[in-house]
């Protein structure tokens, strides 16, 4: 359970990449228990918005407020590719001081138990995505920022991710996910980035 109530709020932010203003005057607020779907076509700025929310990039204008630890999933798994999956995940378990049973639960949820001996570089795209998801979820942060979490996943895994997000929000966490695919999570709010393009 999560002690303080996490939230993430963005006020009137704009994002510029190079000479191009991707979007402007964007405000959003996600409170504990809520999930938000950032939708839009490729290149519209979903990943940039995600990095701004994560605090990895400064917005061109506006500000972001947040309360609570964040876990980010993006296109880079941040797992040592030459190590077996189990040891690659062990590194993050040590860094995050994750209880062993939580990692175990997460691994069963995403169905990776049989692959722990396989070096990360031999994993398929979908398996790698699930491995990155396991790393993100095992962190135990109340705020989940998932950038294209469904890319490369089969339909069964997509359903698992949707269920995990719903469960996380029911437990008082919050989730922002960016995807160009439809996502089925109960009570999911939707933000169309196309409305803020200048």
């Amino acid at each position, binding site marked *: 359970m999560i002690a303080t109530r996490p939230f993430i709020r963005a006020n009137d932010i704009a994002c510029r990449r190079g000479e191009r203003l991707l979007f402007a005057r964007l405000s959003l607020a996600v409170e504990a228990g809520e999930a938000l779907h950032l939708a839009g076509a490729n290149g519209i700025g979903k990943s940039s918005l995600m990095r701004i929310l994560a605090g990895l990039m400064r917005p061109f204008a506006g500000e972001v407020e947040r309360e609570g630890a964040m876990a980010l999933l993006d296109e880079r798994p*941040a797992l040592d590719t030459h190590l077996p999956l189990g040891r690659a995940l062990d590194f*993050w378990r040590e860094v995050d001081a994750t209880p062993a049973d939580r990692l175990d639960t997460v691994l069963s949820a995403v169905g990776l138990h049989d692959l722990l001996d396989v070096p990360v570089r031999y994993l398929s795209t979908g398996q790698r995505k699930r491995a990155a998801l396991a790393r993100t979820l095992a962190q135990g942060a109340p705020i989940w920022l998932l950038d294209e979490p469904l890319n490369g996943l089969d339909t069964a895994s997509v359903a698992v991710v949707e269920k995990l997000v719903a469960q996380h929000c029911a437990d008082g966490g919050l989730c922002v996910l960016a995807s160009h695919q439809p996502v089925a999570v109960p009570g999911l709010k939707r933000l169309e980035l196309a409305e803020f393009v200048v």
Partner: protein
Amino acid sequence: MIWPILKRDVVLLLGGGRRGGALLPILFFLAVAMLYPFAVGPDAKLLARTGGGVVWVAALLAAILPLDRLVEPDLEAGFFDQWALRGLAEEWLCAVRIFAHWLCFAVPLMLATPIAAVLLGLSGEQLLTLELGLLAGTPGLAALGVAVAAVTAGLRGGAALAGLLILPLAVPLLIFGAGSLSTGGEGGLALTAAASLVLVALCPFAAGAALRAARE
């Protein structure tokens, strides 16, 4: 949080994985020391007089080899972003990496130096000064390596550029380090250590700023 990161840094830099190992720069270092007598001839006096300087130059050249795997692979794999999310300052991470790099580069280098000294016919006294000089100078060299690797990470031709950047910046270490051999004085060693300390103090901040700038 820092302990597992230091452990991972050391394991990755020491060897294993796709990033080569700590052995390569040392073999390169010894190869330079071995080739030098072939180039200048077997004049023992000349070798003994110039050998210490050659060891320093060889050490400097060997320091270039690991530069491209110091920062860039982790930056590309997203490790630094994940650490940033956990509230770890880039400066801190770079300081840890400098220490790991020093352990994996400088310690084997100092262990290989007696072999190089034999190849060059250096006396025991010269070897001692050389080792003390390397002990004083290599932390600065390691710090410089991480800072330069962070600045050039993600650039096209970054590896070649890193080599070009680090050499002029390492000149003070070379002058004082090699200089301590000819004067035989502690003054040279003290100045090497001073230059080294300045680099160790400044480089984590330079490297951290470079990593943050690379995100924008």
